C-alpha cells in the first residue's frame, strides 16, 4: 500500500507523542479502507475532539473534525443525506464514551451504516490526563489523584446490546488482528464498532507505572484475553482484563436502505 494514496504526506509527522498508539490505529483503518477497495473520494472520515480525533487531518479523504462528542451525530446526517458515501467515525474513549455515549448507542440502535473506530487509550489525552469512562479502576489520573473509583464501560457489550451489526475489540499490540477487524467491519452493512486499545505513554503510562510505550504494549499483551477464552472464565478472573475478538456479527437491515424504501413507497403512492 502506498502511503501517498491515502495520507496527506505533507502533514506528517503527526502531532502524536513518541510511542503513542494512535498512529498504529490510524494505519490499521487505512489498510482496512484499502482492502475494502473504496474510492477515496467517496469516503468521509469524521471525528470529534481529542488526540485521536486529530487523525482525519492526516487522511486523504473527505475529512471533518467536529466538536467534542458529536461525530457520530454529524456522521448520521452525512450518511442519511447520501447513503452512497462510506462514513467512518474516529473517536476516543472520552469523545465516544463520555460526552458522546448517547449518540453511539442511538446509532447502534438505528443500525445506520457508519463505521466507528474508537481509539481507547483509557484516558483523556488531549486535555492532559483526566480519567475517562474507560480508565481502569484504581488508575491514577489528574482528576483521580487517589486512584479512580469508577468502573469502566465495556463498550463492546454495550454497542452489541444497543444493536450494532458488527462489534470487535483489538489492541495495538495485536495489530494484525486489529487489521482483520477493520476489514470485517468495513465489509459489513449497517453499524460497526471497532475498539482499538491504544497507548498514551504521556498521560496514562507515566502516572501508572508503565514507563514507556513498550511497557504499555507489554501490558496489552499480558492482559488481552480472547473472547472465546473469556467465555469460560468467571467475572472475577476477567476483572482488569481486556477481552478481545468479535462480539457481534449480524445482518440486521441498515437504516438508510430502509429509509430509501420508505421514500419509494411514499412516492409510489403505495403504503
Amino acid at each position, binding site marked *: 500500500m502506498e502511503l501517498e494514496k491515502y495520507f496527506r504526506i505533507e502533514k506528517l509527522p503527526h502531532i502524536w507523542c*513518541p510511542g503513542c498508539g494512535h*498512529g498504529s490505529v490510524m494505519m490499521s483503518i487505512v489498510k482496512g479502507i484499502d482492502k475494502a477497495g473504496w474510492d477515496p473520494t467517496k469516503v468521509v472520515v469524521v471525528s470529534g475532539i481529542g488526540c485521536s480525533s486529530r487523525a482525519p487531518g492526516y487522511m486523504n479523504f473527505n475529512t471533518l473534525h467536529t466538536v467534542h462528542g458529536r461525530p457520530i451525530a454529524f456522521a448520521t446526517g452525512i450518511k442519511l443525506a447520501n447513503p452512497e458515501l462510506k462514513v467512518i467515525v474516529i473517536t476516543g474513549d472520552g469523545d465516544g464514551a463520555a460526552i458522546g455515549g448517547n449518540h453511539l448507542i442511538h446509532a447502534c440502535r438505528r443500525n445506520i451504516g457508519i463505521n466507528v473506530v474508537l481509539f481507547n487509550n483509557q484516558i483523556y489525552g488531549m486535555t492532559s490526563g483526566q480519567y475517562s469512562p474507560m480508565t481502569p479502576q484504581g488508575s491514577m489520573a489528574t482528576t483521580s489523584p487517589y486512584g479512580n473509583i469508577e468502573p469502566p464501560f465495556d463498550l463492546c457489550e454495550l454497542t452489541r446490546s444497543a444493536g450494532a451489526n458488527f462489534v470487535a475489540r483489538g489492541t495495538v499490540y495485536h495489530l494484525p488482528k486489529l487489521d482483520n477487524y477493520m476489514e470485517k467491519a468495513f465489509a459489513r452493512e449497517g453499524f460497526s464498532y471497532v475498539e482499538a486499545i491504544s497507548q498514551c505513554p504521556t498521560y496514562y503510562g507515566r502516572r501508572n507505572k508503565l514507563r514507556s510505550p*513498550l511497557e504499555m504494549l507489554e501490558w496489552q499483551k499480558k492482559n488481552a484475553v480472547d473472547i472465546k477464552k473469556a467465555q469460560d472464565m468467571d467475572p472475577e478472573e476477567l476483572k482488569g482484563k481486556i477481552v478481545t475478538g468479535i462480539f457481534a456479527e449480524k445482518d440486521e437491515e441498515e437504516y438508510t436502505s430502509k429509509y430509501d424504501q420508505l421514500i419509494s413507497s411514499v412516492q409510489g403512492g403505495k403504503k
Partner: protein
Amino acid sequence: MPKKGNVYINENWCKGCEICATFCPKKILGLRGDGKMEVMDPENCIACNQCVLRCPDYAIKVEVIDNNE
C-alpha cells in the same frame, strides 16, 4: 535462502519511541544520541517488516533485496 532487506528510516518522522527496535527479531535497530532510530547492523536485516508494521509514525521502509540478482 533467508530474505534480506534494506531499511530506510525517515528521520523527519521518527520520534525515537524504540518500538521498532524492540520488535525487530534481529535486534539491529538502535537509538542514536539525537533520539532518532538508526540501523546498526544493516547486513542482518531479514526483511521481516516487523519494524514497518510496528512503527506508529510510518517512519520505516524496508526494501526486499532480490537475492537472485
